[in-house]
């Protein structure tokens, strides 16, 4: 041990910038002791962390901590007013149908949170920690302790949002403050419990089954809630006495605490390979975030999926060259039928949002965003060719024919999704207006009139998805626009709106019609058909100009 300490001391002595040779030598000795402690304990990990912190170039100073604390206070002061206004607006009873739709959205949100937590790890380390501390004799649970606290913080934040959503869905006929606290406790308990469940699922197969069961239960709950079968239960829940709310919140908190305790105990049993894989994923995500290039994430997700899949080759259909090239997207889609089914099932979400009280403007935005997202899932080939055109060059297909062929599948998917979602929306609107004439929504445009908008929007959505898939990485050299209250970086902003701009421009007549619900939307439909076709044709023609290859 002393030999190692002397070696470290000699190494540090050569660094003139490090003041206090004996101090560094002492630290090195402590770190060496920690590393050789064989299993160590809390002290060992603490000393290693201290050793690393002492040598970190990005050591936080008291001033840094002061700035962080002050920023948090300012954030709380700024957000406090709007949040309290929103809360005050919830001091009323809600319609059971609206409560059911709201609860369905919350259940779907929690299921998505659970799935995301599982997919993201959730237990991961920074790349250096995964390399140096994970495969060491240090106590694994202590090494992962910092990750545990970070997960808890994220879960509490998500839970607060969930709690507010619950309060918005159920309303607060009396005792607003206590009901708000109860809803927050329920939301935080649910998200913390879900995170603990995701951690546990990494440690054992049994908990993986429980996690899958929880996701399925939440999905069933969403379907039941939106289907109207639970209206009585929701009405009872919305007007439950405070004692019942307190009992429910206490029970949820207790269950969450038990899960957290088990998860903490299980941290030390999570296999190193699981943590290493999650950390690698996390590292990629961090790199993508640091470079502000979220497009990289799509690559990572795709590659991870297909790397783990067992495939069987099928013969390629005999098609004209551009269609043969684009057939890759069709085959890829057919190989993920589950994802396709889930994607198409999400077409019901705008209707659920309408039931939950979404305004026409919000619903129009939801249809546009959903249609664009669905179209984008089928534009992977265009994204690959744009980012790395080596295969496209080998294929030797012209840019215009390739783009036109690659637009077919996104257009088809967007048409199916938007048609289904508009049909659902129209049905909901009709029902809502019949039961609530004061809602101010016209019924003249029934299902038979609205669904063709889906077909007319599809080409523009496909063009937007292709433009989004083929956009360049974020240009960080662009200036930051100073708006007085803060700066907006132009590069990320332009990156974010690329693709969306084309979709909005090409779907404008439909968006106006959806937001204003005219009695006779025939003119809007004709304009939409022309705009959609023109945007796609213009995009394909324009993209074929100049030098370049089949991207």
């Amino acid at each position, binding site marked *: 041990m002393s030999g190692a300490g002397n070696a470290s001391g000699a190494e540090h002595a050569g660094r003139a910038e490090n003041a206090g040779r004996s101090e560094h030598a002492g630290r090195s000795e402590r770190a060496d002791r920690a590393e050789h402690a064989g299993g160590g304990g809390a002290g060992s990990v603490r000393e290693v962390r201290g050793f690393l912190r002492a040598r970190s170039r990005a050591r936080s100073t008291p001033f840094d901590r002061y700035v962080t604390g002050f920023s948090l206070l300012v954030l709380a002061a700024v957000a406090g007013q709007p949040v309290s206004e929103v809360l005050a607006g919830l001091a009323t009873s809600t319609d059971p149908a609206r409560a059911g739709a709201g609860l369905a959205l919350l259940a779907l949100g929690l299921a998505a949170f659970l799935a995301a937590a599982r997919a993201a790890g959730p237990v991961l380390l920074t790349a250096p920690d995964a390399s140096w501390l994970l495969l060491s004799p240090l106590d694994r649970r202590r090494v992962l302790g910092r990750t545990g606290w970070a997960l808890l913080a994220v879960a509490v934040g998500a839970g607060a949002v969930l709690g507010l959503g619950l309060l918005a869905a159920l309303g607060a006929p009396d005792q607003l403050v206590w009901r708000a606290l109860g809803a927050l406790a329920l939301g935080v308990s649910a998200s913390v419990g879900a995170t603990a469940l995701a951690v546990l699922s990494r440690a054992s197969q049994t908990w993986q089954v429980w996690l899958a069961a929880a996701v399925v239960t939440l999905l069933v709950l969403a379907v039941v809630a939106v289907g109207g079968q639970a209206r009585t239960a929701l009405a009872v829940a919305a007007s439950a006495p405070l004692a019942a709310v307190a009992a429910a919140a206490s029970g949820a908190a207790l269950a969450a605490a038990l899960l957290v305790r088990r998860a903490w105990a299980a941290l030390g049993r999570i296999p190193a390979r699981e943590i290493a894989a999650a950390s690698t994923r996390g590292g990629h995500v961090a790199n993508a975030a640091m470079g502000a290039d979220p497009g990289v994430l799509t690559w990572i997700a795709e590659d991870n999926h297909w790397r783990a899949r067992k*495939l069987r*080759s099928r*013969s*390629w259909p005999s098609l004209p*060259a551009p269609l043969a090239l684009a057939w890759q997207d069709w085959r890829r889609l057919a190989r993920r039928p589950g994802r396709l089914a889930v994607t198409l099932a999400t077409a019901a979400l705008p209707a659920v949002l309408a039931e939950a009280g979404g305004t026409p403007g919000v619903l129009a935005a939801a249809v546009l965003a959903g249609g664009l997202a669905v179209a984008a899932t089928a534009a992977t080939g265009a994204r690959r060719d744009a980012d790395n055109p*080596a*295969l496209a060059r080998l294929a*030797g297909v012209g840019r215009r*024919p390739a783009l036109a062929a690659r637009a077919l599948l996104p257009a088809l998917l967007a048409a199916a999704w938007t048609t289904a979602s508009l049909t659902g929306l129209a049905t909901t609107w009709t029902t809502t207006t019949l039961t609530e004439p004061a809602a101010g929504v016209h019924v003249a445009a029934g299902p038979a009139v609205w669904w063709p908008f889906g077909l007319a929007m599809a080409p523009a959505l496909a063009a937007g998805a292709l433009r989004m898939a083929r956009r360049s990485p974020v240009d960080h050299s662009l200036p930051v626009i100073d708006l007085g209250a803060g700066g907006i970086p132009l590069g990320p902003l332009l990156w974010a709106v690329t693709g969306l701009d084309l979709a909005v421009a090409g779907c404008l007549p439909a968006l106006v019609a959806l937001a204003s619900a005219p009695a006779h939307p025939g003119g809007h439909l004709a304009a939409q058909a022309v705009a959609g076709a023109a945007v796609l044709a213009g995009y394909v023609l324009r993209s074929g100009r100049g030098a370049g290859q*089949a991207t």
Partner: protein
Amino acid sequence: MIIDVERLTVELGGNPVLRGLSLAVDAGEIVAVVGPNGAGKSTLLRCLAGLQPVTDGEVRVFGGPPVDDAAFWGRVALLGDEPAWYPGLTAREHLELMAAVHGRPRLDVEATLEVFALVERGDAAPLTLSTGQRQRLSLAAALLRPSTLLLLDEPERGLDAGFRGRLAELLGAYRDEGGTVVMATHDQALAACGRPVSLSGVTT
């Protein structure tokens, strides 16, 4: 003459990479561009493919400047760094895609898999292949499709010694069919199967 380069000068970020290079390549010839790292081998290939603007001089391929369009890539097959594989496709399907796009491929897909020793891994996603296998798949895609000119940047990358010898034979067969090959390589044996052109690098 397939390629005619005269007094080619290329500067990258203000630093000269190639200066006053002249090169003529006839049809049915294999040219091996050799030289140390940083000599400008890859830059030369990119110039021949029309992907690198030249600072000075002239590059003519098939009698005119290389144009990055479909007609050009119908005659030229370029293999540089590892391509991005299409998600959801197997190794065999990547070759089938290439055959389907070109209509009349040079080689049959099954025969290509055999020649490149990929039959056992035909149903694998390319990302699950080893580095050498992925390089073989890239070469298979480039040699399966019909072309007149083959531009290869370090084709020996990741290949075992046995397959490097096989690659020399495959390139020889391509030349015998009338094809032209320009490759940048560090492999002396591979370079020996063609006319070596040495780039010593620009000293400033």
